[in-house]
Each structure stands twice: as structure tokens, then as C-alpha cells.
């Protein structure tokens, strides 16, 4: 199988000992299986996520992304820039689009980049890992690698906000994208049909500053997963994953609920279906353990 190469932007939460290191590990596992080579952008920096606006303002914020894109152009010419984190992808793609639409902005950005010895041409395509899987690999090929179909597992595919809006994946609808359900199906599991909170907001970074309000949103997301009969939630986004998993005990305390539902990355799900070990699938990164996946991985 020919190897497909991409210029890879892992982002802060994928660093060693950071909150979505488990996403990185399981992504590496499925990429190896599917013949995808991710070349890390040397010395990449933070994209400032969606919350950087308060302190950063417009140009400094956009320039952060410009530095990453310029480093990618310099080190990985001809390779699409790919991110696994929804916020990284969104910030980088948005910046890239704006540089290409606005020549004055591009000039100002390059004036700033020059101070660090860099230059931006703006000829990169900025893509999400899921786009690589859906568009470059395809559902059929994803399915062809399944060794242990995830039979009998029902899954709520939680797409969330930023992997969906404003750009969308593969031209799908914003109100009801189906790529995640199709990926779940390709792995032999059963997606919850019409999962009501599929594209609802988890509160994002406001989970830190407005925890009560955000937890109320997460409560509805979890409830809808239970209502749909789900054994677990699957998501492509590190913020969604974290917000739907780690606050369940606090939500239970506040609302008298009994939530205890695992929330895993699509890459963990796929790794298990591809017959990888629990460690390769990063199942040890779960705080609420995904026992059904552990059983399959242990077989």
C-alpha cells in the first residue's frame, strides 16, 4: 500500500502528559494501519484556540497560525497540513482562508513573521484528520481493515461544534452530518439513529470559566445518549471528549443523575476494531473505562 504523507499539527493538548495524548496515540495506531504518515511540523506553536481572542486580538492571534503554516510550507512542501484537534483545525483553516482572501492581511502577517525569519506563501490546504479518513481513505477502505467487528455495541456519534461548523466535513449538512455514524457502522457497531444532541455545544472552553452553565449542556448531551440506548459516546473532538467524560461525577452530584458512560475518540474505536491492543488503542487513557472495548481488545 502506498503511503500517504501529511504535514501534521498535533496541538497543545496532544503533548506528552496533556489531556488528549490518548487521541494522539490512537491516531498514530490507525494511521500506521492505513498507510498514513504524519510528519510533525517542527517547532509548531499554539493556535490560541477559540478563547485566545480576549487577550490576543486579531492580528497576533492570526499570526500564530501563520507561523505554523509557514513552518509547514518550509518543511513539508506539497503535503496538506492536517490537525486532529477541532479547535486547531478551525483556527488554522480560518486563518489560512483569511490570508488568501485579504492581501493586506497577508502583507501585515508577513511583516510580523519576518521578525522570526519566516515567510508565508499561503499555498497550503488545511485539513482535519477526519477529512483525510473520509475523503482520501474512504469508508470502504476503513472497513477493509476491520479484524474484530464491534458487534452488539450501540454508539452515540457526538460530532459537536467545531468539527462541523463552519466548514463541515465532506460537504455534509450542518444540522445532521452522517460521516461519524458511517464510520461507526464501518467498524461493525451500531450508531444511535437520530442522536438528538449530535451537533450540540458542550460549552467548549467555557467549561472552565462557566462550569455550571456548561455542565447543564453536557447533561443534556449525556441524557440524549442514554435515551438513544447508547453503550458509549464517540467523538472526533478533544474538547468534546474531555467535557463529556470527566465531569460526569460532578454532574451526578448536582443533578442526582447516575451517568457513567464512556466517551472515546473515533481513533480509539477504530484501533480496537483493527485488532490492536488496549494500549495501542489508548484505552488506558479513559477515566470512565470503556469495558466493552477492553473486552474485545483482550480477546
Amino acid at each position, binding site marked *: 500500500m502506498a503511503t500517504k504523507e501529511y504535514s501534521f499539527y498535533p496541538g497543545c493538548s496532544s503533548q506528552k*502528559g496533556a*489531556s488528549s495524548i*490518548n487521541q494522539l496515540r490512537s491516531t498514530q495506531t490507525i494511521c500506521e494501519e492505513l498507510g498514513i504518515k504524519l510528519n510533525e511540523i517542527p517547532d509548531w506553536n499554539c493556535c490560541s484556540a477559540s478563547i485566545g481572542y480576549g487577550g490576543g486580538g*486579531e*492580528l497576533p492571534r492570526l499570526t500564530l497560525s501563520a507561523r505554523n503554516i509557514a513552518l509547514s510550507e518550509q518543511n513539508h512542501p506539497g503535503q496538506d497540513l492536517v490537525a486532529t484537534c477541532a479547535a486547531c483545525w478551525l483556527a488554522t483553516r480560518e486563518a489560512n482562508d483569511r490570508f488568501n482572501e485579504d492581501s493586506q492581511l497577508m502583507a501585515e502577517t508577513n511583516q*510580523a513573521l519576518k521578525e522570526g525569519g519566516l515567510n508565508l506563501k499561503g499555498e497550503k490546504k488545511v485539513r482535519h484528520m477526519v477529512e483525510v479518513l473520509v475523503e482520501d481513505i474512504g469508508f470502504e477502505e476503513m472497513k477493509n481493515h476491520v479484524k474484530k467487528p464491534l458487534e452488539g455495541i450501540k454508539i452515540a456519534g457526538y460530532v459537536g461544534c467545531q468539527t462541523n461548523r463552519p466548514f463541515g466535513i465532506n460537504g455534509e449538512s450542518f444540522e445532521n452530518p452522517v460521516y461519524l455514524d458511517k464510520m461507526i457502522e464501518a467498524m461493525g457497531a451500531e450508531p444511535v439513529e437520530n442522536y438528538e444532541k449530535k451537533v450540540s455545544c458542550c460549552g467548549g472552553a467555557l467549561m472552565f470559566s462557566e462550569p455550571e452553565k456548561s455542565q447543564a449542556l453536557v447533561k443534556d448531551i449525556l441524557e440524549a445518549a442514554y435515551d438513544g440506548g447508547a453503550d458509549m459516546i464517540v467523538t472526533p473532538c478533544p474538547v468534546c471528549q474531555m467535557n463529556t467524560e470527566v465531569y460526569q461525577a460532578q454532574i451526578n452530584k448536582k443533578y442526582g443523575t447516575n451517568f457513567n458512560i464512556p466517551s472515546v475518540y473515533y481513533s480509539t474505536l477504530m484501533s480496537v476494531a483493527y485488532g490492536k491492543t488496549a494500549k495501542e488503542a489508548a484505552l488506558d487513557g479513559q*477515566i470512565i473505562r470503556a469495558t466493552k472495548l477492553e473486552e474485545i481488545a483482550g480477546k
Partner: protein
Amino acid sequence: MSSNTIKYRNSFLREVEANVEEGEWVRMCMQCGVCSGSCPLGPHWEHPPQELFMMIRAGKREEVLSSSSMWMCTSCYNCIVRCPRELPITHIMHGLAHYAHKLGLAPKNQPTKKFAQLFWDNLSKKGRVNELKLGLSLYFMNGFGEGIKTALKMKDIGLGMYKAKRMNPFEIFGGHGCKDKKGLQAILKKAREIEDAKADQYPKV
């Protein structure tokens, strides 16, 4: 009357158009209310987006800039994809918040404002976010006593993350960062200068 109010001939709309990210779009709003109805924290906004746009056009400068509303934006982009006039609402909310913060008019104890500033300070130091330090400064942003309380409330989550190797206590001694910190900081400094020089064309408040 502030000099900005004079400069823009009493038009807050003109001031927004000149100083706020994507502010030139505000006049395109047709007041349909779709954005307000799409907002996840909508019920908590004192003035949802549609109302803010109306208030800008009505010249309610102080009320808009001192509002905590736009700080409630979670960046979910629901409004953007639904707005019939295709206003970049999310960015206007961010832009308004940043402009208010820059002028010192944002509400003092707005928690998201504090968090956003902590986040920016954290990342611009080394070029990458240090989640542990960010978390700790977040807990302590309302003072030491409050910080201990929050930290205790959050300790089970911290412990869970630690056990799952998704948190590293040693990050407190330095931790991740860019190698070319100097270059990164020089780039940011220049970007800030360019942005400020543009703002300087307008008189300060």
C-alpha cells in the same frame, strides 16, 4: 464625552466598524433573531447577538461594551451557519469582547474574560499551552481562598487525569514550549505593534 465618540461623530456604529474585528458587517443584520435563538448559552445572555447589533446601531456604547453577554460566546458557530445574511457573528462577538477589554470597559469580574487573558498569557510565554499551570492559575484567579476551594472541588478530576497519564504534575517545572521562543515572541510583538498602530489612527478614549 470621550474622544472616540467625537471622532466617530457620535456614531458608535462607525466606531465598531473601524475598530472591532468584522465590525463592518453589523449594518447587514436584518434583525431576524435566528442567531439569538441558536445560541447554546442564549438564556444566560443579557443581550443576545441580535440585540447587541440593534444596540450598536442605536448608539448604546456603554451598555454594549460593559456587557458580559459577548463573553458567553462558546464559539459553537451555530449562528454563523444559520444567519440568512451570513454575518460572521462569532467573530464579531470575539471582536466586541476584545475591544471592550482593551478599552478597560469589560466587566471586572467576568470569568471568561479572566480565563481568556490567562490563556493568552500562558501560551505567549512559551508558544504552547501548559495545561497544568493554566489550570492552577484558573483555580486561583479569584484569590487564594477561592483557589483552594476550587482545587479541592476539582481534585478527583485531577487525580483521574493523572492516573490516565493525561496530566503531568512535573509540568509545573517548565514543561512544554517552542524551541524558538525568541522568534515567536518577536513575531507576536510585531503583530501587536502593527495592530496598535492601526488603532492609533483613532484617538484614544
